[in-house]
Each structure stands twice: as structure tokens, then as C-alpha cells.
């Protein structure tokens, strides 16, 4: 094969970095599907908005060393608020309707948001520079690996753990998990399921936007980034299991790593590879690797 | 006509049906009763092939049907109605029954003939039998619950079954509707010489037409016999102690 071990390791680490980005987006998608039963096509759009908003906040705080960190906090929150409002005012009206209508609504959002971004920020590529403290690279086995990527690789599991803790140990988390299992039962127990749904949509969107905010310094912010990412997110949640949290984590690792290593082995087919895995999973085990088996 | 042996089914560790065996003779009218959660619907689903058995055998009209799929079992002459009214809401009453007739007559793969009046007389005959002849043009989904149940009966009859499995045929009906429905079911069963096995919660219904009653509790058959025998049965009384509708 002719690749040195250190080169492969670096590729692997790149794969892990991508996996963490994908995880943030897919986790939000998964929780929205698990609780609301809606497959949110617009998830990639919120990711994109997160990146654009980060650019905006960074431009506001020009010359401040904290510009990036301020953006990482503010941008996802702002986008999540938009998501919450959309759910509350529009998506909610479609809950009684057929699933197809809900899906198409999220697609309508994709269309609207992508053009909205074009209108506000134009069609050119934008970029955001990395924060001071995370510039430069570290040496791993003689090769250079960006510090920023290390940060992402470490951040991913932290977010996962925080999330897991939230879902398992806090009251809200438990209610959300209950809603995923049986929303009618929860409603009859006196819980305001509607507000819970808005909260879940808010959280899911926040995660996607966080992904976008964090990816801003390392990717080009441009129109079309919403479509690229949503398909990958779909693949991840299918492989991992729609509605399963750790399945999403596992799925992200698989997709991220297979893609990066696949490029080394079969560069032209790595994309096909990923789709093939998705198809295999859907054929053999449609509820995903860690999902719950369906009745039929 | 129908014989089941040692049927067993569990869901994620919960034993829903725990080794149930019984048989229903030709032209017999048999009721299956039991408290909620006893496993009646599950049992029906196992018999008709909607659910896979863990173990056991189902023999219908002398043929083992355990491994057959639902649509194959239907073609052998086992008709069924479902607990929640199960019709084709966007089709008219006529079209609902006609579809079943089309299938029964083996025309389902015909993609060329205009279907408008195909088997019209046969369809109308069935509609007459279930008392829906004057509603032929009504859209299924707009019917009242009672009429939908009648339509369901019509659809089941269109497949010319030898035996009917009715899952709570009078659920959600008023006393008057219940009487009318039971009268209808009884009349059709006798006229067509059908075998009937039905589940019910309403005891007055059960005791009015059932020739034999089987009692299911927690996945097990705890009693089987003539209505008066079952009424006196200690185990049955215990199971129903305090439950409304027990006479």
C-alpha cells in the first residue's frame, strides 16, 4: 500500500475529527426523530446557519481574542431559538397530519433557509479563523496534526457524556426519554408534551448549530454545506439506529473513520462504500446497530 | 374446523400466550373471554398468521397452517375482523366489499379490465346481508363506527370464509347497536353454516349466542365448556371477581 504507519494514524485521527463533527449533527437529528418522530431534513440547514452565525458574531467582535468563543456560545443559541420558534409556530400544526407532510415541511425549510442564507451572506465562501490558543499543530509520530482537531476529538466525547448524563440523570432528560417511548402516556400523566417537543427541537437544533459553529474555522462556509451534511447525518443515524444515542455515536465513528481510511484504499469509491454500508444495515438490520428492533 | 396446540408467544420476556390448546368444531359458535391483557388478541394474531409463534401448531380445516402467511391463511377460508375498525377509508362501501370479492375471485392481478361494475351482483348481495345496501356509495371513512363494523363484516364475508374470527365485534357500541350486531352475526353464521370464534367483553353478548365459552387468563386457558358450566366455574369467578358486566 505504501503508506507509512504514521500517515495512516493521522488519517485515522482526521477520521475521528470528522466523526465528532458528524456526531454533533446526527445526535440532534436522532433525538428529534426519536421523540418527535420527524426526520428533520432541515437539520443540515441549522448546521449551516450555525456556521454563518459564527462568522457574524466573529465579525462583530473583531480583534477580540474571545471572538471565537463568544461565537461558539452565542451562535448555536441564536439558531436554536429560531428552531424552537419554527417548531412552535409551524411544525406543531402538522403533528396530526401524515408523516409525509411533516417531512416535506422540513424540506421546505431547507429550501427557504438555504436561500435566506444566500440573501444575507451572499454566495461566496466565508471563513473564520481559529482561536489563538488552538492554532498550530502538535507532533504525532513525526507528523503534524492540527491542535484544533485535537480539541474537537476531545470535545466530542465530552458533549456525548454531558448529553448522556442529561438524558439519564436529570428530570427533563427522563421526560424526554419517556416521550420517545410513549408520548400519549406521558401526556396523560400531566406533562405538557407540546412544550417538551419544542424543547427537544431546540436542543437538537442547538447541537446541529454547535457543529456548524465548531466547523467554521476548518471548513469553508458556503451555500450547499447544508445538503452535503444532511445525507451524511442520515447515514449515521440509520447505521447507528434511529433514536439511539450511543448508536449515533457509534455510527459517527464508523462513517468518519471508514470515509477517511477508505480514501486511502479506494479513493474514488469511498463515498459509494458509505452508502453501501447504509444499505446493508437497512437490509439486514433496519433498526440500526444499536436501535430497538421493530415488531415488523 | 380449527385446532390449536400448545401455542406459545412471548414479547421481550413477557409470556403473552403460554401453551394454549383448544379446538373449535365445524359450525360451532364459540366465545373466547378473559380480562384485559389476557392475550385474546395476541392469540387471534397467532392463529391468523399476523404474528409469528414461538412454538405450537395451528390446524385449520385439517390443514396445518402454522407456517403460512396471513394472506395464505385467508385464502384457505379463515376470515377475520379486527378490534379497531379496519376498513378501507378512502373507498366507498361498495368498493370496500368489491375489493375483497375481486381478491377472492382471483382477479387481483388483472390490470386491464375496468373494475367499475365487476362482480356487482355478488357485491350487492353481501351488502344486503350486512344491511349496508343503501349506503353503497358512502365513503368508508365517513361512516359511523357501527356501520364501519358492519362493513368489516361484509369484507370478511366476501372472502367466502368457512370460519370467522371476530375480535370484539361489539366494542364501543351502544346497547341497541350491540343487539343489532349480534343478531346480524348470529343470523349470518347460521345461514352460511359458518364456524364462529369471537372475543368479547360484553357478557350479555357472549351468553346470548355462544354455544361454548373458553376463558383465557394471563395467557392460559382456564376453562372451556357450555355457558352454564362456565358461569358456575370457580376459577372463572375468581378471575372476574369485581369486573363489571359479569352476570
Amino acid at each position, binding site marked *: 500500500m505504501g503508506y507509512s504507519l504514521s500517515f495512516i494514524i493521522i488519517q485515522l485521527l482526521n477520521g475521528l475529527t470528522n466523526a465528532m463533527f458528524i456526531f454533533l449533527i446526527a445526535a440532534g437529528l436522532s433525538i428529534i426523530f426519536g421523540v418527535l418522530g420527524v426526520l428533520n431534513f432541515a437539520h443540515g440547514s441549522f448546521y449551516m446557519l450555525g456556521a454563518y452565525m459564527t462568522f457574524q458574531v466573529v465579525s462583530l467582535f473583531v480583534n477580540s481574542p474571545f471572538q471565537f468563543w463568544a461565537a461558539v456560545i452565542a451562535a448555536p443559541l441564536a439558531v436554536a431559538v429560531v428552531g424552537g420558534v419554527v417548531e412552535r409556530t409551524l411544525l406543531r400544526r402538522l403533528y396530526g397530519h401524515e408523516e409525509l407532510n411533516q417531512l416535506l415541511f422540513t424540506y421546505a425549510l431547507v429550501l427557504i433557509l438555504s436561500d*435566506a442564507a444566500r440573501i444575507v451572506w451572499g454566495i461566496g465562501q466565508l471563513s473564520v479563523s481559529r482561536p489563538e490558543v488552538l492554532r498550530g499543530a502538535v507532533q504525532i509520530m513525526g507528523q503534524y496534526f492540527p491542535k484544533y482537531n485535537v480539541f474537537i476529538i476531545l470535545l466530542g466525547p465530552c458533549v456525548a457524556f454531558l448529553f448522556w448524563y442529561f438524558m439519564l440523570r436529570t428530570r427533563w432528560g427522563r421526560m424526554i426519554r419517556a416521550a420517545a417511548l410513549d408520548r400519549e402516556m406521558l401526556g396523560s400523566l400531566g406533562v405538557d408534551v407540546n412544550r417538551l417537543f419544542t424543547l427537544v427541537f431546540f436542543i437538537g437544533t442547538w447541537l446541529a448549530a454547535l457543529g456548524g459553529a465548531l466547523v467554521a474555522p476548518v471548513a469553508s462556509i458556503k451555500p450547499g454545506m447544508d445538503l452535503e451534511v444532511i445525507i451524511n447525518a442520515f447515514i449515521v443515524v440509520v447505521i447507528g439506529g434511529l433514536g439511539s444515542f450511543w448508536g449515533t455515536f457509534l455510527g459517527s465513528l464508523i462513517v468518519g473513520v471508514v470515509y477517511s481510511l477508505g480514501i486511502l484504499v479506494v479513493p474514488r469509491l469511498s463515498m459509494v462504500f458509505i452508502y453501501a454500508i447504509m444499505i446493508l444495515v437497512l437490509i439486514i438490520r433496519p433498526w440500526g446497530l444499536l436501535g430497538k428492533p421493530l415488531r415488523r | 374446523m380449527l385446532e390449536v396446540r400448545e401455542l406459545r408467544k412471548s414479547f421481550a420476556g413477557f409470556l403473552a400466550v403460554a401453551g394454549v390448546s383448544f379446538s373449535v368444531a365445524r359450525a360451532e359458535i364459540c366465545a373466547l373471554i378473559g380480562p384485559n391483557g389476557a392475550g385474546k388478541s395476541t392469540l387471534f394474531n397467532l392463529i391468523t398468521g399476523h404474528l409469528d409463534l414461538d412454538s405450537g401448531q395451528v390446524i385449520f380445516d385439517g390443514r396445518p397452517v402454522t407456517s403460512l402467511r396471513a394472506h395464505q391463511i*385467508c385464502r384457505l377460508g379463515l376470515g377475520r375482523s379486527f378490534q379497531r375498525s379496519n376498513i378501507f377509508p378512502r373507498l366507498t362501501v361498495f368498493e370496500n366489499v368489491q375489493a375483497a370479492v375481486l381478491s377472492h375471485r382471483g382477479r387481483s392481478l388483472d390490470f386491464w379490465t375496468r373494475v367499475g361494475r365487476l362482480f356487482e351482483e355478488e357485491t350487492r348481495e353481501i351488502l344486503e346481508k350486512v344491511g349496508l345496501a343503501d349506503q353503497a356509495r358512502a365513503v368508508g371513512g365517513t361512516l359511523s363506527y357501527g356501520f364501519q363494523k358492519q362493513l368489516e363484516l361484509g369484507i370478511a364475508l*366476501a372472502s367466502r370464509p368457512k370460519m370467522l374470527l371476530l375480535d370484539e365485534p361489539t366494542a364501543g357500541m351502544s346497547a341497541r347497536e350491540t343487539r343489532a350486531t349480534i343478531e346480524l352475526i348470529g343470523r349470518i353464521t347460521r345461514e352460511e353454516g359458518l364456524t364462529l370464534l369471537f372475543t368479547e367483553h360484553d357478557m350479555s353478548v357472549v351468553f346470548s349466542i355462544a354455544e361454548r365459552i373458553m376463558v383465557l387468563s394471563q395467557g392460559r386457558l382456564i376453562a372451556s365448556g357450555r355457558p352454564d358450566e362456565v358461569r358456575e366455574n370457580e376459577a372463572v369467578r375468581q378471575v372476574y371477581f369485581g369486573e363489571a358486566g359479569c352476570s
Partner: protein
Amino acid sequence: MTKKDWLLPALIALLALVPLTGSRFYIFLLTDIMIFGLFALSLNLLLGYTGLVSFGQAAYFGIGAYACALLVKKAGLNFLLSLALAGLCGAAAAVIIGFFCVRLTKIYFAMLTLAFSQIVWAIAFKWNSLTGGDNGIMGIDFPWYLGSKVHFYYFTLAVLALSMFLLHRLVGSPMGRILMTIRDNPERTEFIGINVKLFQLIAFVVSGLFAALAGGLFAVFNHSVFPDTCYWSVSAEVLIMTLLGGMYSFYGPLVGAALLLYLRLEVTSYTAYWPLILGTILCLLLFFFPSGVIGFVQDRLAGRKGSG
């Protein structure tokens, strides 16, 4: 439906008159509408009649387009034969893909159709030697006997007319009725003795066949074919067309295709923000006119229809 027997011939006759106006604009637009109308009609067989939501119909459209293009350009076959073979290619793909897809339900079905569609796109995108990759296949000329746009218009109209006739017979047949029962209540349909999965597969294959025919026409009409013909956004657009026109009516998809393509043409001459307009239209549709244009019109006229 006998009183509607005149509708199809009338429509075809109407369309046949259009080139007499001499307007190149309308000839071009209507050829486009007929092609996408056929595509949408094929999708509606799955969606409105059998109740299967597929996000992957672009795969068959694309396969038909590429097959036709390759057969005409690289194999030198005559156009008619290429088109027919392209349709068969689409049907063949639908048999294979459909076999796996109908084993699943609802959202998993939709996702698998999407996944297969994306694989088709990825193959079209990456297999440079066969499909020309990102550059696609270009320079597909009209066959000599369809020399002009007008000739091609009439040919497309003929294909559309024949397809609509066949599809109309299908949905008005016992098989069509069974498909509708599957749409309304698959569980119940099983218990009138129907092998539901078999019929779903049949619908899938017929749908793929006509989608591929539309794709073949598309390739020659545009003199080229590119990978983005297979991209999932094409599937979404056709879904929108079907919904816009009304998925519970036979002619709905055609109406939807006409409306959407006309709107797109008009809007894009004023602004670049067509997605924004489309998204808004879609929202209006979903919130206020869920049964589409035809459904809305039908509801307004007294007496709702029964089947279809």
C-alpha cells in the same frame, strides 16, 4: 369513472394543438412539462395509489436517462429502441431495489429508497469511464426522424399519451383497486387474501419503468445528462409536483408538474431565489391545501369522490 373517459383524449388533443401556435416558448415548456408529468405520474402510482412514500425515484429517472444516452451515443442504437431499453433498465433496477425496499415500512422504506438513489448518484458521479462522471454525457442529438423541436414534441406527446392510457387502465383495473386497498390499510388487505409485498413490488417496478422512460426522453430533450439528474433533490421536486397537483387524483401530478415548471420558469426570470419561492409554496400547500390543487377543486365542487 366512465364519464371521465373523455378526459384523457381531450387532454391529448389539446396538447396536440399547442405547436400550431408556433410559439417556441410553449413548445419547449410543454415538452418539459410532459416529461416531468410522466415522471410525476409514475411516482404517484406509488404514492397516491399504493401509499408508498419513496424518496428515491430519481434513481430510475437517472438510470433511464443514462441508459438511453449511452445506448444512443456509445452503442449507436436507434432512439426508439434505446428508449424502450432504457425503460426496461429502469424496471430491472426497480425489481432489484424494490425487492429490498418493500420488506420495510414507512420511514425505513423511505430511507432505503433514498440510500439506493444516492448510490446510483454516487456511481454516476464516480464511474468516469462509463458515465463521464461530473462531466456527464453530452452531445446527444435528436434522431434524424425527429429533426426538430416540434417533431420531438409530438413524439413525447405520443409516449405520454400511451403511458397515460396504460396507467389509467391499470389504476382502473382490479389490480389498481387492490393497490388502493394497500394504500388505505395494508393489514386489512393481507386479510382479504392478498400478498401485499408482491403488489407493492409490482407497483414499484411499473413506477420505475415509466420514470425511466421519462428519463430517456429527458436525456435526448436536453441533449445531455449529468449526475445531478439522480440527486435526491430531483426526487423531492417530483414529490412536490405530485402533492401540488393532488396525489389522490390521476391527473394531479400532471397539473402539478405544469404548475411547478411554469412557475419556475417565470420566477427565475425575475429572481435567483427560486428555492425560497418553492419552499414557501410548499409550506402554503402543506398548511392550507393538503390535497393539492385538484383536491381543493374537487372538494369545492359538491360531493366528494369515492375512490382514487
